């Protein structure tokens, strides 16, 4: 559910929920609980109009006088039960009520976050906080020759094959056939890892360049490898990674708004936890 949906859904809660949410906001700002001593249930003109309008929207016609009376009676009944239930404290041990109230509070915080839009400075701060997350990956250019599953026999074969390659044989003529490329040109680490596994990529980082070496163990067996180039991860520039940073900023902002609202509320409470011995 997007923040926008949540805000919209909240705005269209009925009056009873609206009033409650208002009371909660008020409580949040003032630190006081809503007054439950009020014994008058007022169904004013605005409330009646709203009930009628909702009916019209649903059924494509205005409610008859009898139907309107029914809507009002139902509204009053809800109010009466609701307030009485609150007075009796029935909300306090009801997990559903507790969770639903929490969700309403979250919707309020999220709607605030939705309105905001990040500045370049804010985005740059996010990059500076975690440059590795936004840095372009290390890229590798290399040739590989597949020898076979890891076994003493394959290691012997690898030694012979290595001699051939160092003697100038073409990798095409030495490799066992496998459905992965013999030549990799500037592929990012994640692409290589998806074909040969993480441990192979780790090995690539340490191999000498410009010469055949190995055997190197991958997720599929033994390889001989000649690395021709490694492009180190570049420092991320905002113009190259704006979309990714903005996505994170958006996700973070909703979380931050939620945390901040929670912290504000929590300041008004002493939390005492007694662990069972």
């Amino acid at each position: 559910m997007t923040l926008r949906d949540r805000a919209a859904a909240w705005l269209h809660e009925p009056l009873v929920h609206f009033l409650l949410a208002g009371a909660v906001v008020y409580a949040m700002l003032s630190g006081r609980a809503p007054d439950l001593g009020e014994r008058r249930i007022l169904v004013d003109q605005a409330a009646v109009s709203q009930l009628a309008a909702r009916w019209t929207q649903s059924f494509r016609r205005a409610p008859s006088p009898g139907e309107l009376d029914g809507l009002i009676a139902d509204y009053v009944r809800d109010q009466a039960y609701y307030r009485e239930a609150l007075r009796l404290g029935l909300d306090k041990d009801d997990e559903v009520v507790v969770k639903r109230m929490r969700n309403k509070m979250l919707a309020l915080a999220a709607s605030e976050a939705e309105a905001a839009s990040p500045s370049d400075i804010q985005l740059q701060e996010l990059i500076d906080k975690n440059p590795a997350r936004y840095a372009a990956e290390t890229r590798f250019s290399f040739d590989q020759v597949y020898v076979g599953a890891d076994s003493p026999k394959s290691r012997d074969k690898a030694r012979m094959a290595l001699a051939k390659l160092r003697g100038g044989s073409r990798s095409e003529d030495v490799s066992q056939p496998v459905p992965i490329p013999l030549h990799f040109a500037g592929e990012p680490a994640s692409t290589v890892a998806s074909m040969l596994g993480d441990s192979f990529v780790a090995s690539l980082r340490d191999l000498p360049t410009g010469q055949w070496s190995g055997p190197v163990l991958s997720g599929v067996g033994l390889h001989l490898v000649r690395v021709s180039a490694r492009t180190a991860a570049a420092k991320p520039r905002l113009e190259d990674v704006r979309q990714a940073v903005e996505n994170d900023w958006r996700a973070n902002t909703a979380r931050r708004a939620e945390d901040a609202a929670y912290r504000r509320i929590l300041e008004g409470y002493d939390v005492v936890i007694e662990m069972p011995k």
Partner: protein
Amino acid sequence: MKAQLLCTAMLCAALSLTGCDKVSQAMAGQKAAADIPESAYPERVLWGDLHLHTANSVDAFGFGNRLGPEDALRFARGEEVTSSTGIKAKLARALDFVVITDHAEGMGSTMALYNAPRIMVRDPQVLRWYDMMHEGPDQSVQAMAEILQARAKGTLPPMFRDPAASAKRTHNVWNTHLDTVERYNDPGKFTAMMGFEYTLMQGGNNLHRNVIFRDGKDRVGQIDPLDPTNEATPDKLWDYMDAYQARTGGKVLAIPHNSNVSNGLMFMMSDGAGKTMTAAWAKRRADHEPVVEVTQIKGDSEAHPFLSPNDEFAGFGTNGWDIGNLMLTEAKKPEMYASEYVREALKRGLALEQKLGNNPYKFGLIGSTDSHTSLSTGDENNFFGKHTGNEPSARRAMATQSLGTTLGRFGWQYLAGGYAGVWAKANTRAAIWDALARREVYATTGPRMTVRFFGGADFKIDDLKGDWVKTGYARGVPMGGNLTVGTGARPSFIVSALKDPDGANLDRVQVVKGWVDSAGALHEKVFDVVWSDMARRKQAQGKVPAVGDTVDVAKASYTNTIGAPVLGTVWTDPEFNPAYRAFYYVRVLEIPTPTWPAYDALRFKIQLGPDVVTKAQERAYSSPIWYTPASAKPAAA
């Protein structure tokens, strides 16, 4: 109910105008797809999920999913998210692409119902469901199951059956969704595509299709998802797809799924309405539906033992799924299987082509998850369940899963899988879609095996040497292609399969051949073409001995001390008859590995029932290569 929620939708419309501006501004700093070069031929397989539901799906929300498209996209590209039940979730390996396919029907409506004021819920039945949803997770799952049952039986309250009333809400949920997808599409690195599910049903019989667009919001945003309510055949969907292409200049295809629970309706010899199939209808189906999803959480539809009694590996993932239709409103009769399993459909396609000149069932194969948790989990040791009601927990494996009833299906019968392997020329929407359209794709039940398959007229064993992939493309056709051979020649195939680098070794590679003789009779045969340890495992009476079994169920572990990491060969059809239409596809089997219930049993210290499948040979299915006699009228592309 839908009408009552319009107000919410309309407010969203007003708010979403600003969203578009933000998206276009944000386009900076993201490589445009046009900057990503396509290689001459596909060089590496891309992994993805073409079938995923989020909280916007009417059932997913009801089952408790609270994660929207943004969480789904972040998860697919490898980030950690917190599941709806509060568990930290992360893929061991990111996917290369994903398509979120929320149900078009009532998109966002369960969420809207849930968030609606109770006072506006008039219908007593709907009110009961509303209250159940608010009561707690278990009651919410039960309410959703009842809603789905009512839909299957045609007894939904009137307010649920008004597509016009939900159109506005769908429009707004859809547009917000497309904005999110645009923000996460990162051509060259992670492709987020646009699509939806067309949940076509006849009663409780599954005729579902996923609709996959090649384009971005500039085109896809011009139309809304199509609501299948009140439809019984896919014809309206095809009209809609034609209209989209004509109006926007974009491209779109549809992927049927779960033929296994269609109760004999997905691959009929007649047209969708049960009338005699015409050549035009056959062509229309093939043009719009070039790919079928053959394996997913709700079972595997490759081959059933009833249809393929000589195939000892038929029947993977059919437990529980072959007892009735999707909603279990109707039991299965044996005569239904032939219209439900993909191998039989491919054979029927040949017979229909022989008769009509066009093959309606000329499709490639993919796997996907159909996860309703927003989490594309295809690995046995990291399976987040079909829906939020069976995210990891001690009880999920043995719990009954029959929606709304206590009969039939159980948690353990869900499969952790599958994924789609796509031989695309770049990681972009266009390149992935084009690979689907030419069927250069394959299915796996979850593991990421690499599979190459080329058909030609004269391949010899030496062609699987050196730069053999280039040879395959130069002198043959890849999976999904059409093959003709000259007089006196035989179809020959280069096949090479590599284990998942983080997974199990391979047992064997098989070629599955289907053909139609001149009398119109259908035939099939499974050939073991290369397997591990061939010197020791000699074929006897046409069968290769079992590979063995290293699974320790109690420890949910296996070892790669049997099987082989790579299997390849060049195979020539020894029983080729040039006069008969035929197809050939590859099935790759892994060695046995533990299933997700075995991992659950270890993790949650639970006892599994005696029926539970605790180990299995996971597999890959390539798209077929079709042989057509040179004398035959060429099939429609």
